[in-house]
């Protein structure tokens, strides 16, 4: 019995064949196991919304502070907190949970400048950055700065005001904290850039707001939102998937090391793949998994 089990972990004592857990059959099984974990996460998100997700406590002040630090590095004036823009950001975040979407434009056709107008902020230039599933404010701003379109918003000299919303809810089956960052230049304010018509910068695209888009009948109604009730998420899905991935990589690395040591001790030659190449690649894969930041920006 013990012998049979040991063949799964150690090279065969007579034939010196590789441990069964390192055979190509098991490699296929590992791939399938990981795919099953991902499918399982998606299924739980669909059928048990709110169980999976990220519990984060993010400070609005810290996000503004980090954003202004990035601007100051470039010699730009800091953005001033604007309560109307923050209200617009809150309306946007609530609407994302209400309509269950992760995009700048709602499935119902609602657009970012509609929320800004609804909050009573008259602008000649505005922009929007989105983020979710982050644990710290630093990571959010760093992720935005790593993306050219979001960086363009943060470092845009036209903007004077900033508004931030940090809203918790259930989005696409997973409990999450959505961060909406809105920038604006008030209508009539002096800017380095002259904009003849109101304009918004969404995901790097400069969109001129037509006069019809700001009419009162397009104003959003967000009062009385019927979001899924928010409670603390039990499990962070990215932690589950990362753990599964690292476990598979670690198991393979340990078995490869054992295989290498035992074959050396036995002093036998076996026609097989290179241990060092596998170990190096598995180390790189494991390190990549640890380095990966799981937050999303838009």
């Amino acid at each position: 019995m013990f012998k049979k089990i040991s063949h799964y972990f150690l090279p065969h004592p007579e034939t010196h064949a590789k441990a069964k857990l390192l055979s190509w059959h098991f490699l296929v099984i590992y791939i399938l196991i990981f795919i099953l974990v991902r499918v399982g996460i998606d299924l739980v998100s669909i059928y048990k919304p709110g169980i999976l997700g990220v519990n984060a406590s993010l400070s609005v002040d810290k996000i503004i502070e980090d954003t202004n630090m990035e601007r100051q590095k470039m010699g730009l004036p800091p953005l001033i907190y604007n309560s109307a823009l923050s209200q617009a950001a809150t309306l946007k975040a609530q609407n994302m949970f209400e309509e269950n979407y992760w995009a700048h434009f709602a499935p119902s056709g609602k657009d970012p400048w509609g929320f800004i107008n609804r909050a009573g902020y008259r602008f000649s230039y505005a922009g929007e950055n989105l983020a979710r599933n982050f644990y710290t404010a630093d990571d959010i701003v760093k992720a935005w700065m790593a993306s050219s379109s979001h960086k363009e918003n943060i470092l845009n000299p036209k903007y004077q005001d900033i508004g931030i919303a940090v809203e918790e809810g259930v989005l696409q089956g997973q409990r999450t904290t959505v961060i909406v960052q809105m920038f604006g230049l008030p209508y009539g304010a002096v800017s380095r850039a002259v904009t003849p018509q109101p304009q918004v910068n969404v995901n790097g695209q400069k969109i001129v707001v037509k006069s019809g888009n700001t009419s009162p009948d397009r104003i959003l109604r967000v009062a009385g939102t019927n979001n899924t009730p928010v409670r603390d998420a039990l499990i962070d899905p990215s932690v589950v998937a990362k753990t599964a991935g690292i476990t598979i990589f670690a198991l393979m690395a340990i078995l490869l090391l054992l295989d290498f040591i035992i074959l050396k001790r036995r002093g036998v030659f076996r026609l097989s793949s290179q241990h060092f190449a596998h170990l190096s690649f598995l180390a790189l894969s494991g390190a990549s998994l640890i380095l990966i930041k799981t937050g999303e920006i838009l």
Partner: protein
Amino acid sequence: MIQRLIIKKLSSNTIFIITIPILLSILFWFRFAPQKQFIVFFIATIIYLILALIHHFREKTLIIEIVIEYILIAILALVVIQSFLI
């Protein structure tokens, strides 16, 4: 002959020893840019496959089972990593 083999082995392993820290540094550099991270990891996977195949071709040990093993390990790593980075 033995010397040549040792040099070959050394060169193959040396390439891995040199490239792994470089690739890790690049991955760390792009830690807030997931798509770039995935491109770097994909390139690393290609390097791993090419180096492995060249090594076995030179050693005259390039058989189908070994090729499948390398390809499956590469697929496994790509499947795991892509689910976070794309």
